[in-house]
């Protein structure tokens, strides 16, 4: 099987009626669930997933089976949440999974719930994905009708309810405690840890939050065994990963690749290289929050956790943004800084104040009002944000900011007009009119 034929997650992408139960069942759907419910112990399911080396696909890459193991023994009520608040700029893989193949995610969710002994599952879908809510709800209804959800699933005695929940469209609700607060009806903002959700989450009960792609991988792992999954990829990056590729390449879109594939091959063979007349300048490989790599650096990378880590970036969510030579890197970072400024929930001071500060400095630079010390100031502000907040949103803003400045400093310097203006143009300015 060539890498391109390896379709664990994407078999029904782009297929007519691939989202329907009949198609899914005809292609072996829900066999893994039958297997799990007929004779496997929850702990055995957890072991298989752990052994398979599946790592969380939302961005952090934490081993899924290990996370499941954090639920305290003997907990009376456990909740499971599928995180479909996909809002990282450049990332659009979960949307494909739910759009083209919702049953795969639903089956994976039921198995995962069985593994942690959860009796209620939520699928939290970001507000902007309105049509997906309908699509997933229809699939959930089909699953109920077929006896895959509800009381006494497939005669096993296991009960599970699944609720499709539509968020209101905040990036921060993709952070798991933010998601839990949002689903509880509170303001969507992260909670301090400890306590961790696996111990005290939704309604103060143990709660597991997994990314769509993570749970969607589970049926295949059960059907084919941990060893088969582990055989794909590298030692620490097992299985396949969806990459959503945007930018002026010949064939942008969502790709499922075996982890460890070289970027060079992926770029040339799969994406077809840059579109005509475009030249590759840089790549943000794992969603907007990871450090950018210039073309020369990324070309030597393999697409797996270790190789990208060594290169100073992260696999992240697999939201790959390909940047052409003609792009203005300062403009790009201004767009990204505006995103984090806009999406910061505002509770932790470094992030609340820092994201706005960074955005305004970059904006000032682009407006020709910047001075040489602004570049040092950017680094100073980043230093006051990174690692100092409840959730990683501050880091998510700092990583691209620092890397853009570090790798493309001349473009920033070119915007600085000397001499530095001594007094700002307005002595008594009005507030930001955003």
């Amino acid at each position: 099987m060539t890498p391109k034929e390896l379709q664990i997650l994407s078999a029904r992408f782009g297929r007519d009626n691939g989202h329907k139960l009949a198609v899914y069942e005809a292609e072996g759907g829900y066999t893994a669930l039958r297997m799990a419910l007929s004779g496997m112990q929850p702990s055995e399911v957890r072991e298989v997933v752990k052994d398979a080396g599946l790592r969380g696909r939302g961005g952090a890459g934490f081993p899924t089976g290990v996370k499941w193991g954090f639920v305290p023994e003997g907990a009376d009520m456990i909740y499971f949440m599928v995180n479909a608040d996909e809002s990282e700029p450049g990332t659009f893989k979960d949307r494909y999974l739910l759009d083209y193949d919702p049953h795969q995610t639903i089956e994976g969710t039921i198995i995962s719930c069985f593994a942690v002994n959860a009796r209620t599952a939520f699928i939290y879908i970001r507000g902007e994905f309105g049509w997906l809510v309908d699509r997933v709800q229809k699939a959930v209804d089909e699953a109920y009708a077929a006896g895959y959800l509800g009381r006494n699933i497939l005669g096993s005695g296991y009960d599970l309810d699944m609720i499709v929940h539509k968020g209101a469209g905040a990036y921060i609700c993709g952070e798991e405690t933010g998601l839990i607060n949002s689903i509880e009806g509170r303001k969507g903002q992260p909670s301090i840890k400890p306590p961790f959700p696996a111990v005290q989450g939704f309604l103060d009960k143990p709660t597991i939050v997994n990314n769509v792609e993570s749970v969607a991988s589970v049926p295949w792992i059960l059907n084919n065994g941990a060893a088969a999954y582990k055989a794909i990829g590298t030692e620490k990056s097992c299985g396949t990963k969806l990459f959503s590729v945007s930018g002026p390449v010949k064939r942008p879109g969502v790709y499922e690749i075996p982890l460890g594939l070289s970027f060079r091959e992926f770029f040339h063979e799969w994406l077809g290289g840059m579109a005509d007349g475009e030249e590759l300048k840089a790549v943000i490989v794992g969603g907007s929050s990871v450090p950018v790599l210039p073309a020369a650096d990324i070309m030597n990378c393999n697409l797996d956790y270790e190789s990208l880590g060594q290169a100073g970036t992260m696999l992240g969510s697999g939201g790959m943004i390909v940047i052409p030579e003609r792009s203005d890197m300062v403009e790009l970072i201004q767009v990204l800084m505006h995103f984090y400024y806009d999406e910061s929930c505002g509770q932790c001071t470094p992030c609340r104040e820092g994201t706005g500060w960074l955005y305004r400095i970059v904006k000032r630079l682009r407006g020709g009002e910047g001075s040489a010390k602004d570049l040092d100031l950017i680094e100073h502000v980043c230093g006051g944000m990174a690692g100092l907040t409840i959730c990683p949103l501050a880091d998510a803003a700092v990583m691209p900011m620092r890397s853009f400045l570090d790798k493309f400093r001349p473009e920033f310097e070119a915007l600085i007009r000397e001499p530095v203006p001594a007094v700002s143009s307005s002595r008594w300015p009005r507030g930001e009119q955003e």
Partner: protein
Amino acid sequence: MAKLTIDGTEIEVPDGTRLFDACADVRGQALPHFCYHPDLAIAGVCRLCQVEVEGMPKLTIACNTMVRDGMVVHTRNDKVRAAAKQILEMHLINHPVDCPICDQAGECGLQDQYMIYGLYDAEVEQADKVHKEKAQVIGPHVILDKERCVLCSRCVRFCADVTGTGEMGIFNRGDRAEIGVAPGVELDNNYSLNTVDICPVGALTSRDFRFEKRVWMLKPTDGICPGCATGCNVRIDHEAGRVYRLKPRRNDAVNGAWMCDKGRMLYKDVHDEHRLGAPRLEGADTDWATAGQAFAARMAAGLGLVVASPHCSLEELHLLKRLAEAKGAGLVAGPAEADRGDGDSLLLDGDRAPNRAGLALLGIEELPGAELANRIASAGATVLVAGGEPGDVAVVGEALRAADTVFLGTHDRATAGAARLVLPGAAWAEKAGIFVNRQGRFQRFLQAVVRTGQARDDWRVLGEVLSGLDQPHPGSLRELRGELAQALDLEHLEHLDNLPAGGLVPREAAGPAAGGDA
């Protein structure tokens, strides 16, 4: 117990201690903080109390970390100080720095932390600041300045968790986030001014205290709120003979860190227009020499009834009792139904007098209004009313006017109007004494300000009269308290004259566990 090392000092603290508190013990000073408050849920958002715990990859906030055996913690190294400095800078970048017109100046967390951790030159361009609404009235007592706010969420947590009223919230997000009340909602609960106390900056300020006084000019004196039987421990902030505000003084056994808005406004009574400024004989102002003679003469002639009040201090009640005993007069208080209101489950007691327990301790019976009126009418000799109004003027007014009434009190109200002889006493902030609260806790209050006009300490007035009757009389409050301890069979308490700051419940103090501490 957990043994840990903080800044090179080894300490042992009970398991379950917050690292924040352990650090404060070792440092002798709390870590910088805005959002942490011992009586509120942990928020962990100001990020100022970050410390380095060896073995952890990043700095960690001490407020949300529990001590562990073997922890090695650094609170003063360069990394920690640099983080505190930078986070403080973040707090300040959008702050208006309008300290010259801010009531909080002088007791502001931002100012204090800046002087310890900041001392940098501002890097932010004036044009970059985010501006928000200023001077928004959000309730009967509180005014909000949104751009001074550091979004520590203490006020939100207070209204959510302590009062359960939930008026406050944080609206919007990022650096547009702001504290506020929802449209149509007012911060209108009886504890709203506590949000001003816990606000570490000048975002929430008291409408009553606004622009009244620079806080560094105020002098603090320990007091007890006279507003109800709870006896909240307060700090009386005053200057040049004037009380400007009351603030709660922490006493975990009584009021925690809070007090109610009703109680806070009682300082106004001390200076109000109805205060008695001079003695009055037969309706005409006079001096103390004349008034004292008139009082002594009446006492020598015969005392029919003493009407005490649950607003009197324990010492005053004791002297009133001795006076009644010396003259064979009746001793009552009342009426029993006076000074009652609705209480709540937090602090405010339905009994709106501070020392009703003191009355009971000395065996002084409270009479209902009608019965009290009868007793006054049938006193047959001078009636001495002390400490406050003995009830509804409609019920007892006529009897008081008919009798030879002497009033020793503070305010020119119905009783003073009815009395033939009026002796101006000291208001609660103008004297020292002991109140016994609803728990039976003896709590000491100190004199904060000088007495109004010619008002005198009540115990001295009563002492002089006793002396005129050839009775032993106390020469000092200390002596008086010694006598009181004997009368109450509390001689084993060495501290009646020097009660601990948190007060003392004698029956608890007799056992192994001492009373509350401040």
